[in-house]
C-alpha cells in the first residue's frame, strides 16, 4: 500500500500536530439486501483549536464517520479498515488509566497517539476517551437527556464520573462542588438563572435552552475534541444563530477543537475554519473555508455552491442544478461516486477508477481526475460481500 500523503500540514494552525487523524476509514453495513459502504476511504485531520466543518448530503457518511471516531456505530455497521489516530491528553496526569489500570492494548501513556479503530468499543480505554476527551453534541437534545432526572443531576453525574479531569490531585471532588461547576457551565453557555435551571427537567426547557444544556453537558468533562452532529438542524433560525454564536464564543475561550457536521452550507461558512466536503462516503474536497467557498475545486463542491439559493442572490431566477438524484446506498456507482451526476466527467475515466484525495493548489486537496490522475489502489479491503457485488457489476 502506498504511503498516504499528509493531506493538510500547510493549513495546520501554528503548524502543530493533528489532534485527530482519520486515515482511509471504511465503515460498512452488511445487511441481507446487500452491503452499504457508508464511509469508503475517508481521510482528514483535525488540529487543536480548529473548527472542522464536515458538509454533505444524506448518506454521505458524515455522521457515520464521527460515530466511528466515538466507536458508537450501530450494528450491523462496523469499521472495516483504516485508522483513527487520536492524540491523548498530555499535560495532565492521565487519570483515566489510573482508574482503570491495565487495558487491552497495553498501558496508554499520556500524550500518546492511539488508534481508536483498534480499541474495543466497550472497553475501558474507549470509555475513558469517550466523553472525557471527545464529547458529542447530538442533533436531538430531547433524546439525549433522560426525562426522569433533572438536567443538573445528569451533568453533575457526568462530572463526578470524570472528576479527575477537574481535580487531578488532592481531595475528592464533592457533589456540592460539581454542582457549582455545573452552574458555572450553565453561565458559560448563556443560560440565565442557572441555579433554577439546574433543577429543571429537559422537557421543561425550550429548544434553545435544551441545546445549551446539551452543550454544557458536552463541556462538562473538558473535552479536547467536540463533535457537533447537526446541532442546529432541529431548531429555528433565530435559535440557531444563538447556538452558533455561543459555540464560536466557547471555541475562542477554550480553544477546543470542534468537528461540526451539517448539511447547511451557510452554517459551515459561518462557523468552520476548515471544510471537508463528503459525498457517498468519500471526501471529495477539503481546504480552508475561504478557498472552499471562493475557489472550489471539485465539480461537486462547485455545483453544490451554485445550486443553493441565497439571500444575496437574485429572486425568481432558475438555479443551476445538479442533475439526477443521490443513488440508492446499495447501488453505488463504480469509479468516482459523483461521476454520473458530474457535468465535467470524462467518459471512460471517471467511471473506471476511484480518484484519490490529492493536494490541489497550496492549501486544498480534491479527489478528482481533473487535477491529477492518482487513483485509489485496487486492492483496498472491502467487506466480503461487497467484493462479490463489484465483480458481478463488472461482468454485467
Amino acid at each position, binding site marked *: 500500500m502506498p504511503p498516504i500523503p499528509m493531506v493538510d500540514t500547510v493549513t495546520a494552525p501554528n503548524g502543530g500536530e493533528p489532534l485527530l487523524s482519520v486515515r482511509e476509514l471504511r465503515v460498512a453495513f452488511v445487511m*441481507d439486501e446487500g452491503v452499504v459502504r457508508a464511509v469508503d476511504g475517508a481521510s482528514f485531520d483535525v488540529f487543536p483549536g480548529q473548527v472542522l466543518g464536515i458538509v454533505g448530503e444524506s448518506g454521505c457518511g458524515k455522521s457515520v464517520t464521527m460515530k466511528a471516531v466515538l466507536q458508537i456505530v450501530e450494528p450491523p455497521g462496523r469499521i472495516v479498515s483504516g485508522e483513527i489516530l487520536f492524540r491523548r491528553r498530555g499535560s495532565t496526569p492521565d487519570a483515566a488509566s489510573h482508574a482503570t489500570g491495565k487495558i487491552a492494548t497495553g498501558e496508554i501513556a499520556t500524550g500518546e497517539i492511539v488508534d481508536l479503530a483498534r480499541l474495543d468499543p466497550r472497553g475501558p480505554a474507549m470509555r475513558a476517551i469517550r466523553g472525557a476527551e471527545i464529547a458529542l453534541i447530538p442533533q436531538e437534545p430531547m433524546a439525549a437527556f433522560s426525562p426522569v432526572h433533572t438536567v443538573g443531576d445528569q451533568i453533575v453525574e457526568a462530572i463526578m464520573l470524570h472528576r479527575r479531569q477537574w481535580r487531578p490531585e488532592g481531595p475528592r471532588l464533592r457533589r456540592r462542588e460539581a454542582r457549582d461547576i455545573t452552574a458555572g457551565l450553565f453561565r458559560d453557555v448563556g443560560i440565565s438563572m442557572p441555579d433554577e435551571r439546574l433543577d429543571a427537567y429537559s422537557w421543561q426547557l425550550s429548544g434553545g435552552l435544551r441545546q445549551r444544556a446539551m452543550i454544557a453537558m458536552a463541556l462538562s468533562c473538558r473535552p479536547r475534541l467536540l463533535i457537533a452532529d447537526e446541532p442546529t438542524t432541529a431548531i429555528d433560525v433565530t435559535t440557531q444563530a444563538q447556538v452558533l454564536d455561543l459555540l464560536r464564543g466557547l471555541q475562542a475561550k477554550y480553544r477546543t477543537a470542534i468537528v461540526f457536521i451539517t448539511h447547511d452550507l451557510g452554517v459551515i461558512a459561518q462557523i468552520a475554519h476548515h471544510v471537508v466536503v463528503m459525498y457517498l462516503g468519500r471526501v471529495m474536497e477539503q481546504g480552508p473555508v475561504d478557498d472552499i467557498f471562493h475557489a472550489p475545486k471539485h465539480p461537486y463542491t462547485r455545483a453544490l455552491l451554485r445550486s443553493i439559493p441565497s439571500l444575496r442572490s437574485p429572486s425568481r*431566477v*432558475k438555479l*443551476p*442544478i445538479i*442533475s*439526477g*438524484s443521490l*443513488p440508492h446506498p446499495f*447501488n453505488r456507482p463504480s469509479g468516482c461516486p459523483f461521476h*454520473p451526476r458530474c457535468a465535467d466527467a470524462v467518459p471512460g475515466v471517471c467511471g473506471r477508477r476511484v480518484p484519490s484525495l490529492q493536494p490541489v493548489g497550496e492549501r486544498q486537496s480534491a479527489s478528482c481526475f481533473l487535477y491529477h490522475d492518482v487513483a485509489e489502489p485496487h486492492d483496498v479491503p472491502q467487506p466480503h460481500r461487497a467484493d462479490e457485488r463489484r465483480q458481478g457489476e463488472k461482468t*454485467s
Partner: protein
Amino acid sequence: MADVAAPPTVDVGAAPSAAEERVSVASNWTLVWWRLRKHRLALASAVVLILFYAVVLCPDFFSTQDPELTEARLAFIPVQRLHVFDGGRWSPWVPAVVGKRNPTTLRMEWAADPGRKVPVGFFVRGHSYRLFGVMPANVHLMGATNLAAGRAYLLGTDRLGRDQWSRLMHGTQTSMTIGLVAVTLSVLLGVVLGGVSGYFGGLADAIIQRLIELLQSLPTIPIWLALTAALPRDWTPQQVFLAITVILSLVGWTALGREVRGRFLALREEDFVLAAELAGCSRARIIGRHMVPTFLSHIIATSTLAIPVMIINETSLSFLGLGIRPPAISWGVLLQEAQNLQTVALAPWLLIPGLLVIVAVLAFNLLGDGLRDAADPYG
C-alpha cells in the same frame, strides 16, 4: 448558467436493472411475501396449519372409522403402531391385539398378538359419509383393509371403545373452526367499532372506549361460565357451537378494537390521508382505499396471534364441561376423557389431543410472529 433556460430535467438515473425493476413494481403484498419467505419457522408453521385445515375441510376422509361407533368390549386399546414395511415389502400393517381380563383388577389388558397382523391400506373404502356435507362418499385416507382380521386403532380407543384417531380428526374440525370463526367475528367487531371510534371520534369514541374498558374489566372466566350456563340445555350441538363462538368473540374483540382505533388515529394524521381528503375523496374511499389497506397486514398478523387464544379458550371451556358438549367432539371434549388421574395413568394415549393443541397453538404463534415482522415492508 447554461441550464437556466433548459426544459425540466428528466430526473432519471441509469436505466434500472431487471432486479430493480422487479422491486419497483412489487406491490405491498409481494414485499410482505418476500420478507415472510425468509422466516423458515413461519413457513413451516404455515405448512402445518394447511394440513390442519385440510382435516377441517373433510375430517371423515382422514378418519379410519366412524367416530361415534361405540364398542364397549374394545375400550382402552392402546396405540397400535403403524408399520409400513412387511419383510422389506411395502405392505402397511398394525399389530393385532388380544385382550385378557385381569382377574384381580377386572380390567381388560391388551397385548399384541404375535404373528397376527392387521393389514392397512390407503384410500380404502369404509363407512360412508358426505364430503363437504353434500357429496356421498366412502373413501378414506387409511383404514383396515380386511375387517375380518381386525380393526386398526392408530391412536388407541377411549373408555367406550371409540377410535381416538377418528375422533381427533373430528375434534380438529370443531376446534380449529371455532378459533377461525370466533377470530373472524372479533375482527369484524373490532375493525368496525374500533374504526368508528378512531375515525369519527367524539361521542362515538367515548361510548365505545367505555364499553371496551367495561368488557376488559370483567373477569373472563366467570363471564364465560355465566353465559354458557345460560345456554338452554335442549340446544342442538350445532346451536351450542354457534353460541360458544359468539360468546368467545364478544369477549375477545376489545384488544383488536383498541388497536384498530390507535391505527386510525395515527393514520388520520398521515399526509397521504390528508392528500386524499384534499383530492375530494369520499369518507368511504379514504377508509376503504387508504386507511384499511395500510393496517390490513397488521390486522392479519394480530388475528393470527389471536386464533390460538380462542382455541385455548374453547378447549378450556369444553374441558370444564361448559363449552362444546358430547356428542359433539372437540379437543376440549376429547381431553375431558383424560380428566381423572387414574385414566391418565392407565391410558396415557388419551392425552394426545393435548399434544395437538400445543402444536396448533405453536404453529399459529410462529406464523403470526413471522407475519408481524413481514407485515410492514416500509417500516
